[in-house]
């Protein structure tokens, strides 16, 4: 049913703009999210991520630009879009008086899923997000992380082909984060389009195939995050040694630009993991007693910091 080759599927945003009064929330964002991939939407606070999500979720009309969700325009055909999306908003509430199961069953009814089918679907989702043992508790008593997982289950009730997740990892404990990552990967593996916004870059780096960096309401760049990019990208490495003079001399001799950071550590910039490994081998071969050789930051982090450098 879900074919990755169909060009109409996925999310296609072209030159979208949205202002609230005189506040320009989204200036010009363009992005493509493909089925079968996890696309990360990253950017500083107030960069327009949530506003973009609201437009994708068929709640807001863009002032300009076009949006296509699996080929449908949320302004013209909101029902078609809603049928296909699962939206997990940033900071949402639940009906406190209802139990976890009732919350999901209500959402299923809102999608006009027949109740017998809905019950099975809800049961399966409760297991997916590990809330089965809390199914008959009031939603009010859930912790923040548990509510977050309920929100994810709610976004999955209608078996959406496009998932819009706004900060899904906030409030999750480490185990839940790892589980969320696995859930997202398996959703993408099923051929769904997954768009995730988050601040937690290291996490996104592990789960996302592609990152769209936005700042001040504009999409700055789109970066692929597959193994090739990571292994060839320019990255910083920190080196510590018992022989600092020997290390310094070696690097100078080989014209490796260095930077002294606090604590006597040296930082070098090397393109790709291949070169980094060779540098380490050479250092050890030259008799430098290396005690630490670690990347300073991931490729995504570097890209993000570079893109948002001129932030006010």
């Amino acid at each position, binding site marked *: 049913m879900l074919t990755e080759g169909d060009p109409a599927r996925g999310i296609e945003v072209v030159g979208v703009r949205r202002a609230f009064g005189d506040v320009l929330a989204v200036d010009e964002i363009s992005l493509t999210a493909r089925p079968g991939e996890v696309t990360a939407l990253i950017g500083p606070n107030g960069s327009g991520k949530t506003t973009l999500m609201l437009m994708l979720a068929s*709640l807001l009309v863009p002032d300009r630009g076009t949006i296509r969700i699996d080929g449908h325009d949320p302004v013209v055909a909101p029902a078609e879009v809603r049928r296909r999306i699962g939206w997990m908003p940033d900071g949402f509430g639940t009906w406190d008086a*209802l139990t976890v199961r009732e919350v999901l069953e209500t959402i299923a009814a809102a999608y*006009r899923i027949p109740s017998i089918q809905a019950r099975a679907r809800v049961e399966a989702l409760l297991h997916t997000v590990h809330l089965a043992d809390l199914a008959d508790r009031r939603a009010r008593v859930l912790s923040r992380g548990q509510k977050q997982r309920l929100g994810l289950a709610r976004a999955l009730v209608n078996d959406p082909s496009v998932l819009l997740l706004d900060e899904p990892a906030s409030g999750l404990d480490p185990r839940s984060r790892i589980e969320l990552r696995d859930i997202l990967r398996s959703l993408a593996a099923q051929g769904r389009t997954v768009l995730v916004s988050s601040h937690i870059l290291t996490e996104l780096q592990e789960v996302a195939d592609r990152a769209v960096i936005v700042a001040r309401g504009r999409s700055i760049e789109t970066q692929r995050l597959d193994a090739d990019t990571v292994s060839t990208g320019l990255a910083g490495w920190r080196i510590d040694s018992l022989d600092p003079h020997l290390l310094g001399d070696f690097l100078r001799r080989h014209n490796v630009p260095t930077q002294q950071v606090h604590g006597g550590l040296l930082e070098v910039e090397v393109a790709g993991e291949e070169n980094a490994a060779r540098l380490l081998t050479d250092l050890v071969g030259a008799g430098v007693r290396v005690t630490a050789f670690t990347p300073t930051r991931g490729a995504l982090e570097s890209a993000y910091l570079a893109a948002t450098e001129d932030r006010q």
Partner: protein
Amino acid sequence: MSWHGITTVARLELRQRVRTSKWVVVLAVWFAVIALVTVLSYLALHDPQVRSGAAMYDIVIFFVLGLGMLVVPSLTATSINGDREHGVLATLQTTLLTSADLVLGKLLAAWAIAGAFLVTALPFLVWAWVEGGVPVGRILLSLVVLMLVLAVVCALGLMFSTLTARPVASAVLTYLAMGALVFGTVIGFSLTAFLVSDEETVRVHGIPNSWYENESQPFNPDGTPQEPTGPTPADCVEHDEVRNVTHTERIWWMLPLNPFVVVADAAPSDPPNDQGLYAGFTPMRWISAGARMARLGETGEVRQECYVGDGGQEPPDPMEAAAKSAGVWPFGLGFLLLSGAGATLLAHRRLRTPVRRLPNGTRIA
């Protein structure tokens, strides 16, 4: 819009209401208060001469309406902006539910709760019926009108909750609207009455003032003044008189906008035979007759005021005459239902997504 969607929303609303509030307690208090009022009015008005059913009927119906207009706005006046504040509205708006489903579902739930309040008051209406003096048809008609009026109140509250960002603001606006309907109409009517009052020349069939001036006192042959005989019906003529006239027929329409007038005028109890309009304590009957009289106002017809002698007319009671004329309530109920429909439509428009223009201070999610 679909029935399934509406009931989904209504079920969700009712479930939350029933679980979060102490509705059993509220209904019990409501029942106790109405019981107290009914028993006291029974004791106060029980009169072997006049069947007290009519009085009890009036009091219970008015009490239910008054209390209902206090309670019912709280069901809807915060329902949409409150949901928005709790962050649970947008998650429904991104499902296949339409804004009509949301509005009508919430309305239906609130109306059902209003109905529960009315049902709790039913035993006392049955009691009034048993006491006699009010036919079942009347009671049923006023219940129908009462339910319609409460539906309008629900719709107004719902509309205000889509118009303001803060639940407090919409609650205040809803109560102000209730106040405008209940007190504003009466105040407006009384204050504009002077605008339509004027000295006017009217045609009167009766004893003209000139009769008393011209009528020189006849004297007996012995010179003592005769006993004055006074005018007889034969002395009645049509003539012009300048009088202070209030044209309430120009401002009567304010009265039936009042929900109390609508409910009262829809089914006033009949005055008992031969005891007149004022027998017993029946505020609904009086309000009804008053509103109808205001509509009749000045007719421009010749006033029959030949109240003299044995052959003269009894002075007719204008209220009695008005009570027999057509009711004003269809007009008022029509107005209320139209406002309710308009309010629902506006709420529906305000809930439509995707949103093009967001009012200041509101968040979509």
